């Protein structure tokens, strides 16, 4: 055990030997500059964020549905409601809708469907049968949940009823009654003059038609056929109506009624597989969406074929 020296230290006599008083001006010197470190830290974080957010951001490899652009989100939503129309699985549909819901949207996924249907119904999306069917599926979906949207008014109520297949009643031919024998009046020897009646030919009244429905079917026997039905009010076929089919690099004009066994308003056109065709009544209706002659399988026979279409034109009003 060492003994400490008890020799007292002599008092300081000179001012420079006295310890400096502890004040804000006489703190011990730190080994680093706080200001320098803070400025460096802020600068470093800023540079790092700029680099990672703008210069070299993370490459997106797992985009989620809510991050999609509005058009594609609408398509995804259409897929959800179409699937619901088929399987009626509401839980699954809601789960899928939640994955589609962005933070800035309302918390009501059903109302989001109504809003999207409204937006689609006010665009050209409804011009095709597929689009119309998609919006109907959305309307059914949100209406079942008690929601409403402007699509309810944009699409007429009659459109909500599916117009799946129009049954065309083939007319039953009736034979003309045989001519009855009538006595020939005795000719008078003196001819009498009759007043000449001038008949002024009038042009056939032109009416506009609308493309009322396009139904697809697959039948191996009539593979790749466009069947056109031009009908008057009351599903009465109209013969002699011009129809035009256009495709990439060509067109064909023909008239209804040339196959009377299929009805007076019937005409058809044979497609080539893989091509797209547009059907219209030239100058009297809008052109259809492209009809694709894609491969299909006959559900009755299982044979491979080409998709066929039934196109119905009806008077506009």
């Amino acid at each position: 055990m060492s003994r400490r020296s008890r020799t007292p230290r002599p008092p300081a006599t000179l001012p420079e030997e006295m310890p400096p008083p502890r004040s804000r001006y006489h703190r011990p010197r730190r080994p680093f500059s706080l200001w320098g470190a803070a400025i460096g830290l802020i600068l470093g974080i800023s540079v790092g964020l700029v680099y990672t957010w703008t210069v070299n951001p993370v490459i997106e490899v797992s985009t989620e549905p809510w991050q999609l652009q509005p058009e594609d989100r609408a398509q995804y939503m259409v897929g959800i409601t179409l699937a619901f129309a088929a399987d009626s699985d509401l839980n699954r549909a809601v789960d899928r809708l939640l994955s589609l819901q962005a933070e800035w949207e309302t918390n009501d996924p059903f109302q989001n469907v109504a809003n999207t249907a409204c937006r689609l119904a006010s665009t050209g999306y409804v011009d095709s049968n597929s689009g119309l069917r998609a919006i109907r599926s959305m309307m059914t979906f949100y209406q079942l949940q008690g929601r409403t949207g402007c699509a309810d008014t944009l699409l007429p109520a009659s459109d909500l009823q599916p117009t799946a297949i129009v049954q065309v009643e083939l007319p039953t031919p009736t034979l003309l009654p045989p001519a009855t024998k009538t006595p020939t009046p005795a000719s008078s020897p003196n001819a009498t003059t009759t007043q000449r009646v001038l008949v002024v030919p009038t042009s056939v009244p032109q009416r506009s038609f609308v493309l009322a429905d396009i139904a697809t079917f697959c039948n191996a026997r009539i593979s790749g056929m466009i069947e056109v039905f031009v009908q008057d009010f009351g599903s009465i076929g109209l013969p002699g109506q011009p129809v035009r089919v256009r495709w990439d690099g060509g067109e064909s004009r023909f008239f209804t009624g040339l196959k009377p066994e299929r009805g007076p308003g019937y005409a058809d056109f044979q497609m080539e597989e893989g091509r797209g065709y547009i059907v219209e009544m030239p100058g009297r209706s809008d052109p259809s969406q492209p009809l694709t002659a894609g491969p299909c399988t006959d559900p009755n026979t299982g044979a491979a074929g080409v998709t066929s279409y039934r196109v119905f034109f009806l008077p506009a009003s």
Partner: protein
Amino acid sequence: MIRFVVSLAVGLLLGLGVGLYLGWVQFPKEYINSPARDLAQEYKNEYTVMIATGWQADRDLPGAVERLRVLGVENIPQYVQGVTERYITTSRDVRDIRVLVAFSEALDRLTPIMEPYRQLNITGSSS
């Protein structure tokens, strides 16, 4: 002065590391308005199942194919075949597999691995 410069450099390096971590890991840039072709594969599969399910109800094959075009795949029948086979090989929900197999068959892409899941179609045609 040297003390300040050294401190600045050390702070800069530390801050850079923190910034990179925040920007790449903790708060990475989130993309919105992305096209559907950038969807994660899982969601692409999900979308394909939805379209195939919808097709089973309306039988609108051109419409279904058109809806799948947003995924940006060039050969849609081949893509559907791939998804179907992936669902089979990974033992996914058998209902989804059946739907996809029927859709593949409609697109003329029925392969032997799909045969056990093939369903007889007893619904009548519209013609």
